[in-house]
């Protein structure tokens, strides 16, 4: 690990004006600093900042402080099942006790080439090339890819939040701004090193999940190589509102398949107003992987995605 200067301010202003790399749970940052993937000269420990609390506000929106730990959010009784489930299927219990949810949303890709400084990587070292496109790409994305980068976004939580139209409240010394999480993440395009819309001097302050009365009927299905403690090959977040046997409303997003959390609006549109049965789910899911660009070793994901969508819909409709 390269030497760095560490400060631990207790006020937001000090942290926001520090110009240093923010450290919360450290599960991404310390890991990547040990690998020399990240070499920040200055690090600011933000754990003493007042960015905590989990509550439902008077409008019924769920507000979660960015420094709340994954385990605390997962266990909170007012958190929608799809969020709890996505968190509990993430990482290990030790990591969930450490990682903040703001940090979870800012975590870096698990692409093996990104994590290995001996290899080229456009995301880590712009213009150096992408060995994954012709290389070991079984875990990589099929949606939202570019000729510069095919790395998946690793967060399960972000998939659940994108399905629920969550926003993030960004704080800075210029005041705050609110961004839809779906707009926060950037497709790699020609500039994969620009992963998100966070500007210098900004921090994620709060995650806001809009009130959705029927989201009690929601779930997260994660398909992976191991039963536990593994990243997704494909995952699906679903919230489903069934009335009189028909789909009144639905939200669906997928993980493990895209370079960003992937909302499946076409599948949602195909389901709305139709019967809430397996045949309708199967038919609607056929468009889930539309636009996919499979690589040499990950073509299976174009078949796995619609199947995972159907399984998630069946689980939640029977639940």
């Amino acid at each position, binding site marked *: 690990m390269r030497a760095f200067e560490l400060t631990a301010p207790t006020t937001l202003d000090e942290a926001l004006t520090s110009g240093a790399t923010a450290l919360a749970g450290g599960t991404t940052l310390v890991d990547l600093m040990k690998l020399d993937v990240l070499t920040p000269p200055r690090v600011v420990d933000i754990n003493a900042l007042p960015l905590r609390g989990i509550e439902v506000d008077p409008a019924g929106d769920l507000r979660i402080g960015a420094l709340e730990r994954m385990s605390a959010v997962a266990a909170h009784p007012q958190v929608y099942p799809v969020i709890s489930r996505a968190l509990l299927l993430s990482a290990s*219990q030790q990591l969930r006790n450490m990682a903040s949810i703001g940090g979870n949303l800012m975590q870096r890709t698990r692409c093996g080439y990104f994590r290995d400084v001996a290899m080229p990587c456009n995301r880590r070292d712009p213009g150096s090339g992408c060995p994954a496109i012709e290389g070991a790409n079984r875990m990589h994305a099929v949606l939202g890819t570019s000729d510069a980068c095919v790395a998946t976004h690793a967060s399960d939580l972000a998939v659940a939040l994108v399905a629920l139209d969550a926003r993030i409240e960004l704080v800075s010394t210029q005041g705050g701004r609110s961004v839809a999480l779906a707009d926060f993440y950037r497709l790699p395009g020609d500039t994969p090193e620009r992963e998100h819309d966070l500007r210098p001097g900004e921090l994620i302050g709060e995650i806001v999940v809009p009130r959705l009365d029927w989201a009690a009927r929601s779930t997260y299905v994660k398909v992976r190589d191991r039963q536990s403690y593994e990243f997704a090959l494909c995952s699906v977040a679903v919230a489903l509102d069934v009335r009189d046997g028909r789909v009144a409303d639905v939200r669906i997003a997928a993980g493990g398949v895209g370079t960003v959390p992937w909302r499946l609006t076409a599948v949602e549109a195909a389901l709305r107003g139709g019967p809430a049965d397996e045949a309708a789910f199967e038919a609607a899911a056929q468009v889930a992987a539309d636009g996919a660009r499979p690589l040499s070793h990950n073509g299976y994901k174009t078949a796995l995605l619609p199947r995972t969508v159907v399984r998630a819909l069946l689980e939640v409709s029977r639940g």
Partner: protein
Amino acid sequence: MDITLEVNGETRHLSIDPRVTLLDALRERLGITGPKKGCDRGQCGACTVHVDGRPVLACLTLAATVREPVRTVEGLAADGRPHPVQQAFAEQDALQCGFCTSGQVMSAVAAVEQEVADVREFMSGNLCRCAAYPNIVAAVEQARSTKESADARV
């Protein structure tokens, strides 16, 4: 930089580089070698300790960021008697080489305290290359039933 750690009920003062992890501070500076350095990348769980009562990975924790009390496997025994989870690991033969055991035990203590429903899922962050998993799960279940009968007596 100068830091203060509370480890197993004792206050310890250290002067360290910001790069020093909690694991290295415990092992190399304080001589507390129960937490083990396995992968040193947050993947194996051998370094698991409790911070503020919750299991965390000491290898991914910078020592200078620790504000709450730390408990290691050395802090489990009370009055010269092993913790019920340690006793259960011995009785169920829940180890072979023993390298992962202190981390397994720290997670297992939390599993029992939190009364987790799915022991295998909860313990998945602790790898055992000897594959003592069936006996580890049995030890956690034994410690849980010991606790339940103790709770029932209260």
